[in-house]
């Protein structure tokens, strides 16, 4: 399936809406052509491409809804998928939280499509793998990495006349480099809009340097440390917290954003004044689709303003119940910072630890968003502005809320996409006081 253009999707979705006999009908048509290459032990292990498209039809009879989907778009298939959805809707119990289809919207396009990323070929991927592996082999290091890129289209329509279409591309590269004896490990990750901005020869040197320099790690006592977190290390913690900026769970009293005695903490000073986080679908370097999964138009929006909670996500149902404006789910997370690089933050650190990356982060207590996880692929001791020696990895137990109250300095934000996060983020490196490490890990 090639990437369908706007007119093709309009024609298919138009037929679907026409075919439906339900009170209302909404449909989404999404497709992606993605390619990947995976390498390990200095050799390509798998490579492939995935081509997929899917039409999802949602219909409603009163408050009874049904959904069906299909990956074939001939007239008979379209008829079948609409009838399936209608049949499921008739069988479904009434949903007391049913919301009618959204009205016609005006979506302002965002630049989610990059010609250079869309033009990636299997040869390009093989070259990225080869250029990642060769310098590692030369230095007796072992590379394992993954490049995944894709071009996609998203189209939505409903029986109230709403329609939206946009194309997008994605590019994510990660590589772990280890010493042959397994005593050193380094990592580099890049999430980019334009593939032409990717210079594998430069990127791989970051992982090589970290692998080499992390090899003779010393053990430090766990405890509270000043840390410089690289943006990739910040992503796992801040990204996790932002997922819980939900009005309903806060109002229901089961969120760190719930207010004692009832209500939520919207507008309260929860973080250091330096914390400013926005979402903006039209951000030049990290754009997002201008609508969310329900077709609500995304806006540029403060999420945290000068340390105050400036946003909670109101679903359409919850907004109506609470007399509020419904909000679209953010498509990206953009945190402001300063002008210094990670290296410059290290220079300004008297005593502390540099953390390349955080890993396997899980919720310990939703009451305080206490998260646990580990450092990985390059943790170093800093003294008088210089990296003195590598240290063994630590387990942390820390709440991003507490962490974002202990900010010493923020650096220059860069685009990151966490290994476990579906959303693109722009985050600064940061120097923090009293970051809580609770045990040592022997893992390299």
């Amino acid at each position: 399936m090639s990437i369908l253009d706007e007119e093709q999707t309009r024609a298919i979705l138009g037929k679907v809406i026409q075919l439906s006999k339900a009170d209302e009908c909404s449909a989404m048509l999404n497709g992606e052509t993605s390619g990947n290459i995976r390498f390990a032990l200095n050799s390509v292990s798998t490579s492939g491409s995935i081509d997929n498209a899917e039409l999802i039809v949602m219909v409603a009879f009163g408050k009874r809804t049904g959904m069906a989907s299909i990956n074939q778009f001939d007239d008979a298939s379209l008829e079948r998928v609409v009838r399936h959805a209608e049949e499921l809707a008739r069988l479904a119990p009434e949903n007391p939280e049913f919301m009618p289809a959204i009205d016609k919207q005006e979506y302002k396009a965002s630049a989610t499509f990059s010609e250079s990323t869309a033009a990636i070929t299997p040869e390009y991927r093989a070259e990225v793998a080869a250029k990642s592996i060769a310098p590692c082999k030369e230095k007796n290091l072992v590379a394992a990495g993954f490049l995944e890129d894709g071009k996609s289209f998203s189209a939505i329509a409903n029986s109230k006349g709403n329609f939206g279409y946009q194309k997008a591309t994605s590019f994510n590269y990660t590589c772990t480099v280890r010493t042959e004896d397994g005593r050193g490990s380094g990592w580099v990750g890049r999430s980019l809009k334009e593939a032409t901005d990717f210079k594998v020869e430069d990127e791989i040197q970051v992982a090589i340097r970290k692998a080499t320099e992390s090899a003779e790690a010393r053990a430090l006592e766990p405890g509270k440390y000043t840390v410089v977190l690289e943006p990739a290390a910040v992503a796992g913690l801040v990204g996790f917290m932002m997922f819980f900026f939900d009005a309903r769970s806060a109002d229901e009293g089961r969120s760190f954003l719930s207010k004692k005695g009832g209500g939520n903490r919207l507008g309260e000073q929860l973080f250091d004044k330096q914390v400013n986080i926005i979402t903006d679908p039209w951000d030049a370097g990290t754009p997002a689709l201008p609508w969310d999964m329900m077709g609500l138009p995304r806006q540029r929006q403060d999420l945290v303003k000068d340390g105050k909670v400036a946003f909670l996500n109101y679903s359409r149902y919850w907004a109506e119940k609470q007399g509020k404006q419904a909000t679209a789910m953010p498509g990206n997370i953009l945190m402001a910072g300063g002008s210094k690089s990670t290296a410059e933050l290290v220079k300004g650190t008297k005593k502390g630890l540099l953390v390349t990356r955080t890993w396997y982060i899980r919720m310990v207590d939703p009451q305080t968003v206490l998260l646990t996880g580990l450092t990985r692929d390059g943790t170093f001791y800093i003294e008088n502005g210089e990296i003195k020696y590598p240290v063994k990895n630590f387990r942390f137990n820390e709440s991003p809320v507490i962490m974002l109250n202990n900010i010493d300095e923020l650096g220059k934000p860069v685009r990151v996409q966490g290994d476990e996060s579906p959303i693109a983020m722009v985050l600064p490196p940061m120097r923090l006081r009293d970051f809580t490490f609770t045990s040592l890990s022997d893992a390299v």
Partner: protein
Amino acid sequence: MQRRDFLALSGLATSGLLVPSFFGRAIAAEELLTVLDPAIKKRLADDALSAARDAGATYCDVRIGRYLSQAVMTREDKVQNVMNSESTGAGIRVIVNGAWGFAATSDLSPKGVVAAAKQAAAIARANSKYQSTPVQLAKAPAFGEVSWKTPIRKNAMAVPIKEKVELLLGVNAAALEAGASFVNSTLFVVNEQKYFASTDGSWIDQDVHRIWAPMSVTAIDKSTGKFRSRDGLSAPMGLGWEYLDGNSADKTELPVGSTVYGMSYDMREDAIAAARQAQDKLKAPSVKPGKYDLVLDPSHTWLTIHESVGHPLELDRVLGYEANFAGTSFATLDKRKEHFQYGSDKVHIFADKTQPGSLGAVGYDDEGVKCKRWDLIREGKLVDYQTIRDQAHILGKSESDGCCYADSWSSVQFQRMANVSLAPGKDKLGPAEIVKNVENGIYIVGAGSFSIDQQRYNAQFGGQLFFEIKDGKVTGPVEDVAYQIRTPEFWNACVAVADESDYRLGGSFFDGKGQPSQSSAVSHGSSTARFNGINVINTARALG
């Protein structure tokens, strides 16, 4: 277990939206009961096998799969979503010039599968240019035409949606009646109809069933702003609808007063207990950090086994193939050679792809190897790993352990964890006798928060219910408990394992691995076990 899946699920649960299924295309309920004719599948597979041979393949396997799933999601008195999904197609894997190639197609016509076989051969040929060592495939016997089916008593796909909705809404009502503030309950039903054929002379038709009924019950104290949840104590199982019968013979009353479940689950009873215990958790004292002897119920231990034994003994991790994402393993090949003391002599851990009721039980794996049981750790000593056909020779084995799995016809099969379980103790011993000898301990029931490093050394686990043990007696619930371990020290601190009568399964319905990530389901059995002198931390914090 994978966080992406968790986020996707909680996203669904909180939004109540109709969103695309993460399984495949959505279909009407009656289609969940149909099967593809094996004779048609054999003809298609044979076409693909000959096309691959003609294209120069020295080996080819064809998987024609129909993957069905159903999810019913509810909260309180509302049905949030009902989804029926199907994904059907063929995945073809070949070896040409000693290199693997793979291609998949949803076009189940002779033309479609032949084209995919040719494409797989072309990819293999291209990959062979970069391959330094040719693939070595351990021998697999030719089984001819065989079939296998999960021994279910009642196909959950055949149970009407209405009955499922009534069950869940009844469960929710019972929890609310017992004082819960909120309750989410869900049913997942999976049926994999898998046909495998290879140039080795096997044509294997399998019908695999799984079921899971998770729930989460929340109690809130608005005056203090405190909230606590207690998740259900069920396990995802390789069973049919009969798992939800709630047979009294499958219930165990623990010394801490909680009821836990074996091969059948009483969801309504557990919902009532969960509502009461969630409220108890609001009032329970916060744990004093320090060293404790832990008594771990199987509803908890499965996750510790999964993370600290199952994953580190996957051979692909040990070798470095997963270094960039999931990580490697501390249990390196030299440790097997020297019979590394992984645990105490009470620790006997086995892998088993045949155990009835388990999530990983199949007759044959996804590369046509007959499934079996084998030891990984014997009397505490590391003796083996989990392998697939192209890895067996690395350990000097003549056959694969049968650990190959793909989560879809469109995914390439690779090494996945077998059911890995702690064998019950040989001497007669129950949970109550274990508690009697504990001076200063904590009894943990149910799985909670979990995190482990990329080599599987340092892990931290929470739970659902925690009870303090003082001088051989359970004194009452405590809260804010998590324990931290270093894997070998933890398993070497195991001083007692209860006998076979206490053996129960837990498991993960969505275990993630690989890039692009694939999901698999796996069970882990154990009896109640005691671990001495484990580091317990207090997880309470104040946000101001």
